């Protein structure tokens, strides 16, 4: 059993994969709690897909692809914040338009290139086993930035999320924090992008936090349990991938989804016990 657990980590690429998943789990668990409870799941997906535009620009111009992704995600985050304040269409419609526009821009730029582009494919579908040392360092730096921000401004973020009007009355720049929350999600998306891929990255923000929210009901505990769920899913998915010769990121996402279904089962069982009618006389 121990061999089964440890054998994969004889390889450096597996150790790097585990480390980057550790970073993704911690960042995803913390940021995901805000994403799930502020109804930002669709924004997270939009941010992930918008990175394709930045990836494409960097790819064509020979720049750093992660920097391109970060730039596109931050621009989209600010755009989402702006449309939320000003747009005369509904919020999700505005996000939907931003989402497809940025994604289309990415495809448009890439369509001018011909031939197979394996690096690009790793951004779209993720390539955990191909994470380089530089990718790992980049994820650690960005992830630490996000965690430091949440730790420093925890009370402000909580207050603004719960009651923006009274928060503003108390002297907190509510609008600034609402934008900061979106930028924070953008950075979290980029942390996980190379490993998990554009298509599935949002799952690492949503599923662990949603699973935790079924079982506990305060923000700090949701964050901690979310991190736990993400870590367990990561290890299970990575082993499934190693021994079952399947792609790692979908295996991890499916493991997380299984955790969610399990938690859903637990809450349904609990609810049935609570509302059970008194026994017949």
């Amino acid at each position, binding site marked *: 059993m121990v061999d089964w657990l440890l054998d994969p980590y004889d390889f450096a690429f597996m150790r790097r994969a585990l480390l980057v998943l550790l970073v993704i789990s911690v960042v995803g668990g913390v940021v995901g709690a805000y994403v799930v*409870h*502020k109804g930002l799941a669709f924004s997270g997906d939009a941010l992930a897909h918008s990175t394709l535009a930045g990836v494409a620009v960097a790819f064509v111009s020979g720049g750093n692809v992660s920097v391109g992704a970060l730039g596109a995600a931050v621009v989209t985050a600010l755009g989402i914040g702006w449309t939320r304040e000003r747009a005369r269409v509904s919020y999700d419609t505005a996000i939907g338009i931003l989402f497809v526009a940025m994604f289309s821009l990415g495809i448009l730029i890439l369509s001018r290139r011909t031939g197979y582009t394996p690096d690009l494919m790793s951004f779209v579908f993720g390539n955990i086993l191909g994470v380089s040392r530089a990718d790992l360092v980049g994820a650690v730096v960005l992830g630490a930035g996000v965690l430091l921000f949440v730790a420093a401004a925890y*009370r402000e973020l*909580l207050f603004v999320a719960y009651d923006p*009007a009274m*928060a503003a*009355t108390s*002297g907190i720049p509510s609008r600034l924090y609402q934008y900061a929350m979106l930028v924070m999600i953008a950075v979290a998306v980029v942390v996980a992008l190379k490993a998990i891929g554009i298509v599935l990255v949002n799952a690492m923000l949503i599923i662990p936090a949603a699973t935790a929210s079924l079982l506990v*009901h*305060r923000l700090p505990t949701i964050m901690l349990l979310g991190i736990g769920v993400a870590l367990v899913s990561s290890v299970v998915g990575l082993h499934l991938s190693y021994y079952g010769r399947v792609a790692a990121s979908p295996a991890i996402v499916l493991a997380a989804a299984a955790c969610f279904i399990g938690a859903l089962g637990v809450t349904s069982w609990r609810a049935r016990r609570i509302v059970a009618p008194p026994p017949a006389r």
Partner: protein
Amino acid sequence: MNDPQYASVAVGDHVPAREPLPPEHGHDRYALDVRDLWAGYPGQPPAIEGVDLRVPVGELVGLIGPNGAGKSTLFKAILGLIRPQRGEVLAFGRHIEKARDDIAYMPQVEEVDWDFPVSVMDVVLMGRYHGFRPFRRWSAADRSAASDALERVHLSEFAARQVGRLSGGQRRRVLMARAIARGARLLLLDEPFAGLDAAVQHDLVAILDELAQGGTSVLLATHDLTCVANSCDEAVCLNGRLIAAGRPADVLTPEILAETFQRHLLTIPGVHGGVIEVGAADGAPRES
């Protein structure tokens, strides 16, 4: 009866009358002094026009007006949540920005995210917030003040509960506890009684009354005219502009109410010993 189109209250409502203010009460000192305030939203005509309003220290002032009269806009403009187009707002003689620590605001209940995973204690602690200090956690003094505030609104046993799992009346009491924990001397409450039954409303008014006795000043927007008549020291009628302000008995007259609410039918038990009916058909108010 809860239809906010009709500013009326159930007959037999038992919101108590406040004790009259003592003669030595300092009516001349103002917790809130609003002068010629104009405000609205971009691309629209002003929602409030040239409003002058004063809340004397230690008084309960009821703000009434139909839906769309600009009550919430007035609150937001007073607090600087929307930028006034013109006018001045002073709290305790200072510019409102400099008096933030003295003010607590209770927005309409639907503006708060009740599903967010915070406990009752978390919410009350928010009242203790006084400026950004990175990595700061709540102190023992903050926690003790929050516990005291919860005790005053009789919610101590719910401290650990997620706020979304409370009833409507309990939610209002949590927000009231947050205002108490803040130690605010001026409370701005936007429809604190909306959707509450008479008994719960009675409890809230009792808490407000106790706070006012202790020197806290309150401006509350409500559709409940009986509450204003029985429990407020002053009434203010608003419909875009200020229609009237003064003692409830002087303000809640058929003529002023007809002007404030225009074509709506009103039935208010009691202000002048009878029932006032403001007829929608002929627009002729009469007292019986």
